[in-house]
């Protein structure tokens, strides 16, 4: 594909206009005790509406999005974000609601949350669902807090200090475990999956939980899931399901059936709410009967025809976020669930897995794929053979950008050398799949010089990330200081 991204030499916004003038304080400000009153006016430009709109519209044209190109980031499930959801999320009856309004005035919002929870209960196979977490990692943390309180009640918290994870786990898993005060214990995989023998060695009376993504980040279904589940439960531990890869198994299996105790889902992956340049997302917690009492408050309950917020849950971990979750995104996810229905949901996973296997087969003609051939919604390739030509996976990723597609996830998971992790969700057509295959072939076979100097068609050439880290310039203030020849305050490297 011939592709050129817009290239504006768009200055930062403060270079577009003058600073505010100082003036006499208005009466409302004169009331502020003088010692608390702002001495210097806020330093930000005064601009007309068109200046602001043009600035940010130009910036938008220097950004990839799903609406303009495929985004095969593995484990990120970059599927189409339906426009009807955007329309409905902007209804006055959705936006002009304050979380502090009396329950009687927000019955529709509570009903929508309740209906989405009921739907996700069926999708996950768990009786109770909470929509409070803001994102996947936030859901992980909340789930581990629930595990913690569960063992506290059983009097086992003192000894159950460990959370076990396979080395293919998303980075958020060990980070959440550590944040919750557990020791994250990683076990090496075998052929891309959990090594049962290593798991059996690792579990014991110190085990609080196993965190597992299934299918995992190698794109493989953990077929020994029943044995895994029995091993952890036999040791008195719990199983946590990371729902990042749920897109592969909708209507085929679910965490409840696989014997998990608690799960998080990402509505911004499986349920097509937009990623917004990194967020907002929306997390979901789903829990088995034994962990449900620990879900965050409030819970949405239905009494007769009326919906209310129930705070009377003595075992609850309390609140992990203000209000009731990211309602605007819950609404979008509900539209998605409603539109697809039972059959549509099943079609999603069948097509996502079909896309993934088709693409894996074609791309393995260019680069080797580790592990077994049958994959789920995503798969891994290794860029290691490129090294013989002095080229790395990073160069290949940059070269792919020139083809008008986003690069896959790279260098993760670490068990594969020079890894590329590729996911083409169900919303991508055969034409895009074949287009990607061709683009990939062109990129892999390009000259080392072309690969190492890529990209050429974007708003900027290869970005110097080393300079950014060595000499951190993190704000306008840093740039001003640098312009005044004052060295910015250095940031010491992580210990």
């Amino acid at each position, binding site marked *: 594909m011939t592709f050129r991204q817009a290239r504006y030499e768009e200055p930062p916004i403060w270079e577009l206009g003058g600073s505010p003038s100082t003036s006499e304080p208005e009466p409302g400000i004169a009331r502020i005790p003088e010692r608390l009153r702002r001495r210097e006016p806020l330093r930000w430009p005064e601009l007309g509406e068109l200046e602001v709109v043009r600035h940010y519209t130009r910036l938008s044209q220097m950004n990839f999005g799903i609406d303009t190109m495929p985004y095969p980031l593995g484990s990120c499930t970059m599927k189409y974000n339906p426009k009807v959801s955007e329309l409905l999320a902007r209804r006055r009856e959705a936006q002009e609601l304050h979380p502090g309004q009396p329950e009687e005035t927000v019955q529709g919002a509570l009903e929508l949350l309740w209906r989405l929870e009921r739907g996700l209960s069926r999708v996950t196979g768990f009786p109770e669902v909470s929509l409070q977490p803001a994102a996947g990692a936030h859901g992980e943390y909340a789930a581990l807090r629930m595990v913690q309180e569960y063992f506290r009640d059983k009097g086992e918290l003192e000894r159950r200090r460990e959370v076990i994870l396979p080395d293919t786990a998303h980075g958020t898993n060990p980070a959440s475990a550590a944040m919750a005060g557990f020791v994250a214990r990683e076990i090496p995989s075998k052929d891309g999956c959990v090594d049962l023998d290593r798991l059996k060695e690792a579990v014991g009376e110190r085990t609080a939980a196993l965190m597992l993504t299934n299918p995992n980040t190698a794109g493989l279904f953990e077929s020994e899931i029943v044995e895994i589940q029995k091993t952890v439960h036999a040791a008195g531990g719990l199983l946590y399901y990371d729902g990042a890869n749920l897109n592969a198994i909708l209507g085929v299996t679910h965490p409840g059936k696989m014997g998990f105790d608690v799960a998080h889902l990402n509505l911004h992956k499986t349920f097509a709410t937009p990623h917004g340049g990194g967020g907002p997302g929306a997390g979901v917690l789903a829990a088995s009967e034994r962990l449900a009492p620990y879900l965050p408050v409030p819970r949405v309950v239905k009494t007769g025809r009326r919906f209310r917020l129930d705070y009377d849950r003595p075992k609850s971990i309390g609140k992990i976020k203000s209000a009731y979750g990211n309602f605007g995104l819950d609404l979008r996810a509900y539209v998605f669930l409603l539109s697809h229905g039972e059959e549509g949901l099943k079609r999603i996973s069948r097509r996502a897995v079909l896309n993934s296997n088709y693409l894996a087969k074609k791309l393995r003609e260019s680069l080797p794929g580790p592990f077994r051939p049958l994959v789920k919604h995503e798969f891994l390739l290794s860029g290691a053979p490129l090294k013989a030509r002095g080229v790395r996976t990073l160069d290949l990723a940059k070269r792919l950008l020139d083809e008008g597609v986003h690069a896959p996830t790279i260098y993760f998971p670490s068990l594969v050398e020079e890894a590329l992790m590729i996911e083409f969700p169900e*919303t991508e057509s055969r034409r895009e799949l074949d287009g990607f295959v061709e683009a990939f072939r062109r990129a892999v076979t390009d000259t080392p010089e072309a690969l190492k100097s890529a990209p050429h068609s974007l708003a900027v050439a290869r970005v110097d990330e080393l300079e950014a880290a060595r000499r951190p310039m993190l704000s306008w203030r840093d740039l001003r200081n640098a312009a005044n020849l004052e060295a910015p305050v250095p940031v010491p490297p992580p210990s």
Partner: protein
Amino acid sequence: MVRWIPDSAETEGELLKALGLSDTEELFADVPRSVRVGRLGLARGLEEPQAIEAVDKILARNRPYSGFANFLGGRVAVRPIPAAVDAILSRSEFYTSYTPYQPEASQGMLQALFEFQSLWVELTGLDAANASLYDGATAAGEALLLSRRIHEGNRFLVPASLSWEERSVLANYAAGHPIRIEEIPFDGATGGLELAAVKAALASGDVFGCLVEVPNGFGHLDEGWLELRALLGAIPLVALADPLALSVLEPPGAWGADIVVGEGQGFGAAPSFGGPPLGLFACRKEHLRYAPGRIVGATHDAEGRRAYTLTLQTREQHIRRSRATSNICTNQSLLALAFVVYASLVGPSGLRSLQADLAEEAEALVRDLSKVPGITAPRFSAPYLSDFTLEVAGHSGVDFLRELARRKVLGGVPLSDPRSPGPSDPFRSMVRAAATARGQGRARARYVRAARSLLAGGGAAV
């Protein structure tokens, strides 16, 4: 059925055939029979018009605040949003993009986030900001954890005026460590921090941080903030601050705050029943390596042009795993974009005059409500901006507000903890009210009428 999955059955058949398969079922041969599920029990899918109808029918059971005399305050702010904000947020190059891992493909979002960080730095007076956290409450939770990385101890001080919701979130963020969160009482007359209690708490040692709210949990200002730096010595001071207030208040960095967090929803995002919100976070550069979240830095490209990229990523979960400074991955980038677009459209003098006008509106509401028998407004004597706290004699705030809503008035948010309702709750009768727009004269009159008739026994018992 909606057409969100492309291609005909024939085309799908060709893809299968290329794999040497005849049925998609074969793609799931690795899923054991024993964990297979049958029907999930969901309804049939809907066409777009039916889905719109179904969702609109549910939404019709809501009563948006715009249909009321609206004085809802607290962390979630109701403020007019220029139409241009949504025009920018609706650019699908922004809202359908992912975290800018490939900087060359994402300069637009990266530059916008760099501008956002710069704005929060200007508002707070600190050295550096990150590219957003989930919301104000979780940002306070991360600030607590950062404080403990830069100072030893197990006790964290918070004002007793902090809302129950934020205290609960903080407790969850602290739960992985042997941390005690301790409340500093407020002065019954001013609502401000009891500085003597801060001193006493510090004297017994082991304190690793202290949080204040700007304005405080009652909506009021407190000159005591200025004394804290000297009292705390090397102990980190965290301010949980409202961005609009910071357009007229001295930046907390100037009076010694080490970390400034906040809720940014009020800048350009609709309340939307409380989500998505925006967590704001800034700190000193010397502490940045312990700080959470994504950070955008300015650098150059291979041809010497200005460029932006995510930086200092070795703090983050995808690299450092269990030794990361936080587990956060997805953040609130689109809301950060809304924040900087909103502030740029309104401009610094516009923000200042908005805050000034809302403060005057709030003062007028106080003036009128204070004449209603049974209402003490304001409950505290310290100065305030848009929000203040009132007290309803002998009534629960929740019941009072419910009755007001029946009279088309949203009179504020209750300060009581719904987990433990009852007469022992010191906030049972307190309500935080706010001016939400310019020219609220008629709405104000309705509030006063409704409150008067209610408290004179003209309504159902409250």
